[in-house]
Each structure stands twice: as structure tokens, then as C-alpha cells.
């Protein structure tokens, strides 16, 4: 032992440990508890004595309970630390065991500081336990009231809308020239009978003269002829072909 000050014998050896493992939250907690039993400033604690206490405790408890793995891991690590610390200084392995011991000491100090802080916090005059807020506050009431908004124009125009909506309305449906599906069907099937060649759908429409120049009527004729073509294809009387999407539609008689 080359550092006798740090590794002095435990101050409170007399404390016999009759403790349940459940009492601690993990090995660090147990170590801190053992360290506190030395009744010295944590900065002057003997790490070696602490290690001995921990190992002795684990050994004793091992007989009685299934020790949690982390307690055993800590025990193994502390056993290693102890043996490293006991080596002559020049033979000490890397990492430096005294550095490891110091780090352990720093951790214990920090946990100890927080444990003390928690105790002091809990001992304060606490609201609802030691001091009390007003038991039955009257409350600061905030009444919300809606201020409805509407302007003159909104009022008057909505009356106009009511009048418009409820006034009797006469609907006139203007007659429109159309090519009916029946006449398109007759026309397309008659024309298919003339040839076996492919014909573009538009070639089935009536020639552009007289009323057939009227664009709306032509659109109607095209639509009806298209439906007629589909109908004939369905009946197995015609064949349809379209080379590209939106391209011209061709049809021919199915022999």
C-alpha cells in the first residue's frame, strides 16, 4: 500500500450488516451506503476498505439470495480494482487503478450530494402539507359574451336572397337538335356493310351541309356514333382500333 492515507482501515467496522438487498437501488447505492457508514467526509473515504466491505457483503448475501447481475458485475470490477491497487506502483496496469478509484469516489460524492439535496428538498415547508393555499378561493371569473356582428348590407342582401329562393321559378328547357343513338346505330351499321376496310369514326358522320354544319349537332352525332361503335363491337359485329391514346378511332366490319 503506497497511499496509506486513503486506504486506512474502515472507521466503522463495528457496523454489522444485516441488510436486505431490496433496500438499495443498485450497486452504487449500496456502495454509497457503505461509504456513509465510514462516517468520514466522502473525499477522505478509504476506497480499499469500501471495496472490502462491498465484497464481504456480496459474499454473505450470495448465500441467501439470487444476487442481481449488476451487483455481481460491480463486485468483479471492484475485485479487479482492489488487486490493481495492491500492486506495486510500477506494476500497475492501464488504466491507472488510482484513476479508477478516484472516479468511483467522484461518482459517490455526486450521488451523495443529490441524496442530501433530495432530503433537504423534501424537508422544506411544502404546500399542502406545511403551508396551505386559500381553501375556497372565490375565483376570478371571466365571463365570455358574444358580440354578434351583422351589417346593413348583409341584412338586406340576405332578405333579397330569401325572396329569390322562394319566388316561383319557371324552368324552360330549349329543344336541341341531336342525333339519337338509334339513328347513329342504323347509320354506322349500314355504312360498315359497304366495305371491309378500316374507317375512321369521323367518316361515319353526315357530310357538312345544311343543318349538319351546326357544331353542337356535329358533336352530338360524333358522340352517338361512338356509342354506336361500342355497341356494335359488343355485339360482335365490328372491330375497334386505336393506335395511340386520344388518337383517331378506326372500325371495320367483323366478317
Amino acid at each position: 500500500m503506497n497511499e496509506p492515507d486513503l486506504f486506512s482501515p474502515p472507521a466503522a467496522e463495528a457496523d454489522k450488516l444485516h441488510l436486505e438487498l431490496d433496500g438499495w437501488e443498485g450497486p452504487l447505492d449500496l456502495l454509497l451506503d457503505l461509504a456513509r457508514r465510514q462516517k468520514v467526509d466522502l473525499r477522505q473515504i478509504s476506497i480499499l476498505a469500501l471495496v472490502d466491505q462491498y465484497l464481504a457483503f456480496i459474499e454473505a448475501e450470495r448465500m441467501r439470495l439470487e444476487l442481481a447481475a449488476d451487483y455481481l458485475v460491480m463486485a468483479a470490477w471492484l475485485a479487479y480494482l482492489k488487486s490493481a491497487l495492491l500492486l506495486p506502483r510500477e506494476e500497475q496496469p492501464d488504466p491507472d487503478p488510482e484513476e479508477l478509484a478516484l472516479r468511483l469516489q467522484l461518482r459517490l460524492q455526486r450521488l451523495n450530494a443529490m441524496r442530501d439535496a433530495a432530503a433537504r428538498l423534501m424537508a422544506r415547508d411544502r404546500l399542502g402539507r406545511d403551508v396551505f393555499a386559500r381553501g375556497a378561493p372565490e375565483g376570478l371569473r371571466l365571463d365570455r359574451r358574444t358580440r354578434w356582428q351583422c351589417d346593413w348590407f348583409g341584412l338586406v342582401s340576405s332578405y333579397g336572397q330569401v325572396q329569390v329562393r322562394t319566388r316561383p321559378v319557371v324552368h324552360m328547357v330549349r329543344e336541341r337538335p341531336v342525333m339519337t343513338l338509334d339513328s347513329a346505330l342504323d347509320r354506322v351499321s349500314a355504312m360498315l356493310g359497304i366495305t371491309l376496310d378500316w374507317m375512321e369514326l369521323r367518316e361515319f358522320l353526315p357530310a357538312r351541309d345544311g343543318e349538319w354544319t351546326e357544331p353542337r349537332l356535329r358533336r352530338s352525332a360524333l358522340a352517338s356514333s361512338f356509342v354506336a361503335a361500342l355497341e356494335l363491337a359488343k355485339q360482335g359485329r365490328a372491330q375497334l382500333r386505336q393506335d395511340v391514346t386520344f388518337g383517331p378511332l378506326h372500325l371495320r366490319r367483323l366478317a
Partner: protein
Amino acid sequence: MDDLTRAVEAALFAAEAPMTTDQLAALLNGAAVLPALHALVDDYAERGVHLVERGGRWQFQTAPDLAHLLRRTREQPRRLSRAATEVLAIIAYHEPVSRAQIEAIRGVQTAKGTLDVLLEAGWVRVAGRRDVPGRPVIYATTADFLSHFGLASRRDLPGIDELRAAGLLDPVDEAFEALARGEEADEQGALEKGGESA
């Protein structure tokens, strides 16, 4: 302030309900609390909080003259819904008018809430009951209505001819669309379109 008075003060402050002198005494190991109560009443007499006795029970309460500070009203502006605006317009043009008449003119049923909103806004009042079977309530506009809309009297409302001249009797697609979308139903809850009164 002596310890007993301090204790009485704290006990009443923290109490969830007014306390009798017996309750206070029991809490404070049988002390005679009445002198402490009277000392506190005097102490608080000029403050924002008073100690008062009501039916043998003691409690702190805020000074009555400060009530206006502790009860605040916040106004929230909100646009009148289309349905409510229509009902208001119909009442204004046709008053006094019953709910059934309003529905006949609008061509749709009117949700209960719609009239309530107008009553709450202070623009419509109940103007009695019509002397017909069922004695339906009839509605009319108020003086507040006139002043809100800047009208000297109901005669200032534009007539049908003026509405037509202003283009306000042209069909407004929007109005139909709104109805079709059930906008009123959203606003008014249980509103049903196309009521039987049409």
C-alpha cells in the same frame, strides 16, 4: 398580532368552507376564538379582503366594492350566421311574425338556436302571442336593432323594388351552393332543409 389571532386567520384562510367558532376552537385546542375573530374583523375592515360572519359561520371574502375588478366580461365578436341573418331580415320586413311564418317565407325550417341568437344579441324580442289556435309566439325587432343598423325606423329598409334595382333579387348561385353544402346545418345543428312549410 398574537399567535391565536394568527392561527385563526390561517385556519379561516385555508378552510374549504366557512367555520363556526366551535369548529375553530376545536382546531385550536379549545381556545376562546371570539376575541381573535373580532380583532381580525377590525384588522381587515379597510382592506381588499373582509372577514365576515354569515349565520354563525366565519369566512374571508373579497371586499364588495372590488367585485367589478374580479368579475370581468370579455366580449367576443362573432359574425351572425347566414340563417340567423335571414331570420332577422324576415322579422324586420314582416314583423310581428311567428316562427311558422318565418319558415314559410324562408322555405326551410328554422333551428331553435337561430332565434335564440337573435334574442341574445338584443335585436329581436318576443312581441306577444298571435290570437289564433296554438297562440304562437310572435317576434319583432328592438330599438337596439334599429340603432345597430343605423335605421331611424323600419320604413328605412329598402323595398322590394329597390332591392331589385340594386340587383339584390338576382339569383345568387352562392346562396344555393351554401344551402346545398348544408352550411346552415353545420351552424345550427339540427336544421333540416326543405321543411314541410314551403
